[in-house]
């Protein structure tokens, strides 16, 4: 990858972090116990990913979106890969988007270093798509692509929205808070 690309990618990461809006943490209200129908939680809200528009793409400047995170089906409830990474389903949905007929939205996940990128898929006519990842920290990126384009390993169009996994909020304490006098460089930062 070129230095120019990396610089742009790094900037994207910074913007994504700076625009991150934390999802709510409250449980849905419990349904009336006399109600025969169970009102189900949609996902694990704590790990939900808010997608924040870049405001750069015509027809999607006010786009809203969310990546709902749930564990991949597993006999153990929680799903892990062999090395212990969480294997999660991501259900992406977007709204407030008006696209030209020859354009489509495509969802991707990538590591914070942008050294690995996985195409989750093209959003359908309802602006939804689902996929899986076992990245521990990742960015969820929505791009605008030609509708009939062959799936590729990397996006080509502009970024419409992006968000970050909850785990991406972890950062070193060195140089911050109680450890503000700890030199970051000692710890490799």
């Amino acid at each position, binding site marked *: 990858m070129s230095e120019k690309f990396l610089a742009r990618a790094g900037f994207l990461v910074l913007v994504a972090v700076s625009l991150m809006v934390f999802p709510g*943490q*409250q*449980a849905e209200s*419990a*349904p*009336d*116990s*006399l*109600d*025969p*129908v*169970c*009102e*189900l*939680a*949609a*996902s*694990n*809200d*704590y*790990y939900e990913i808010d997608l924040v528009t870049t405001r750069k793409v015509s027809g999607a400047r006010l786009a809203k979106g969310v990546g709902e995170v*749930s*564990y991949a*089906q*597993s*006999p*153990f*409830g*929680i*799903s*892990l*890969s*062999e*090395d*212990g*990474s*969480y294997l999660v389903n991501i259900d992406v949905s977007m709204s407030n988007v008006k696209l030209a007929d020859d354009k489509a939205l495509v969802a991707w996940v990538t590591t914070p270093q942008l050294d690995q990128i996985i195409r989750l898929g093209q959003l359908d006519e309802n602006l939804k798509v689902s996929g899986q990842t076992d990245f*521990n*920290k990742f960015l969820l990126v929505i791009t605008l692509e030609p509708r009939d384009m062959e799936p590729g390993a990397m996006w080509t169009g502009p970024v419409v929205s992006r968000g970050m996994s*909850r*785990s991406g*909020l*972890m*950062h*070193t*304490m*060195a140089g911050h*808070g*109680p*450890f503000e006098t*700890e030199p970051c460089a000692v*710890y*490799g930062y």
Partner: protein
Amino acid sequence: MSFLKPRILVATLSLLLALPVAAQDGMDHSMHMHHNHDMPMGDSLVWRMAPMDGMTMPMMPEMMDDVPETGAFLPGFGMDVSMYPEARPSEIIDMADGDTLHMDASLVRRTINGQELVMMAYGGMYPGPLIRADRGSRVIVEFTNNIDMPTTVHWHGLRLENAFDGIPGMTQPPVETGETFTYELDFPDTGMYWYHPHMREDVQQDLGLYGNMLVDPTEDGYYGPANREVPLILDDILMDGNGLYPYGETTPTHALMGRFGNVMLLNGITDYNLDIEAGEVVRFYLTNVANTRTFNVNFGGARIKVIADDVSKFEREQFVSSVVIGPAERYIVDVHFDEEGTFEITNAIQGIDHFRGTFVPETHVLGTVTASGAVADDHGEAFAEARANEDTIADIDNFRRYFDKAPDHNLRLTIETNDLHPMTMRMMEVDTLYFPPIEWNEGMPMMNWLSTGDEAKWTLLDEDTGQKSMEINWQWEVGDVVKIRVFNDPSSFHPMNHPFHVHGQRFVVTHIDGVPNRNMGWKDTVIIPVGSTIDILVDVTNPGKWMAHCHIAEHLHAGMMLGFEVRDPSPDSAGR
């Protein structure tokens, strides 16, 4: 027995679960000293610095000299180790209907990592004797307490008669040193179960008081073919250069995250090896008896097929890349070692370095399987098929109409604090950006060690009534099908995964975060990850006064338990 009123019960249980550890002969518990990290162990037991394996965070000056607000305690401390009998490996005790087993709990001598230690054992064995019986049988266990602490035995997962569930103050009085209690065990369900104390588990279970019960099917072809059956008990224990790391005397330490061990044990040893012939399908019966650690078990790349859950087979066998098993859970898995070689049994996790803010891959080698030669009786073809278990499916079919019913109870898992160390409070308030679904490693050993069961109050909050933990006393009847929605609140002071255990009944997990569970087995314990909402459907069959609780030993003793009562309305149950 007559049931105690809830408030009296709460008080009694709290008292019993927090019972001060009885002094060992020759021990002086009044000698715990503060500011003594650098002191060598002498004639009296004092706190020393908690093991800090892999810790990158610099020690905060405010915490340097602090020790938990309870004394240090180790059974047998100060005694001549050689006076205790050497524990021997576990034996299988085949029991027929009506048989009686005489079993005690006692102090024993064991060697782990080259250090001679005073530990505890059932029947003088590590793990305790494996009780093997047919489904439908009833056996008697004459239990004698020969340790210097009161204890009881809980027969985890069995739908047995309430009087023998082993809950002090609820189903029986504590068994004092030298006393005997007779347990009658029923085995209505095929599978692997386990037994352990229900008093100061953080000490007694950690020191070796655990064993399995294998309930054999009475039907032919219940499981697919396998070349051998092997019980594997997963555990860890906390040690340093001076041996076992002390426990809290009157209340557990490590109350925030539970007591992670830094030495991994498989069937009680650090160098487990199983010799087999290449090509074998080995049926492993996995049990996690660790105080708090959840394992992610691999078999060196050998193919794994999961067969059964805690209390039944799954609806469908399923191939998996690893086995995730929380404290107190059991899984039965078939593993095909299709070529010669040495296969490492590992715990592969992504720990968290809170200071660096990174995931840290860790692999703990738990043991090995050495495959050589070639097996004559090759079950590879049968192994390759994932069977549908029509008996389990038919059983669960009876409950599917309840899957989408509204919850009968809504439970929130949370924590309250009481005079926690100020620096811990501040750190926890600062470090709120991310809590993982599961805590796989000891990420904050100093703060965790300093927290005791008196300062961290883990809480089960009934959202419908506002009652907390042992204030709760749900009333059910035999034949009820009860849905409990359990929510692990991520906005609590210290969210963490909890293995939620229901005594005396069985349940299925119907939904995980609103997603229907597509392959169920009957369970008695389920992991509730951080932020998750888990719906469980309880098949209420067993009358009596029972508990449900978190099976992290330190969380249980920090209050994370509730009560429920099952009445039997049938005419022939009058007077029960």
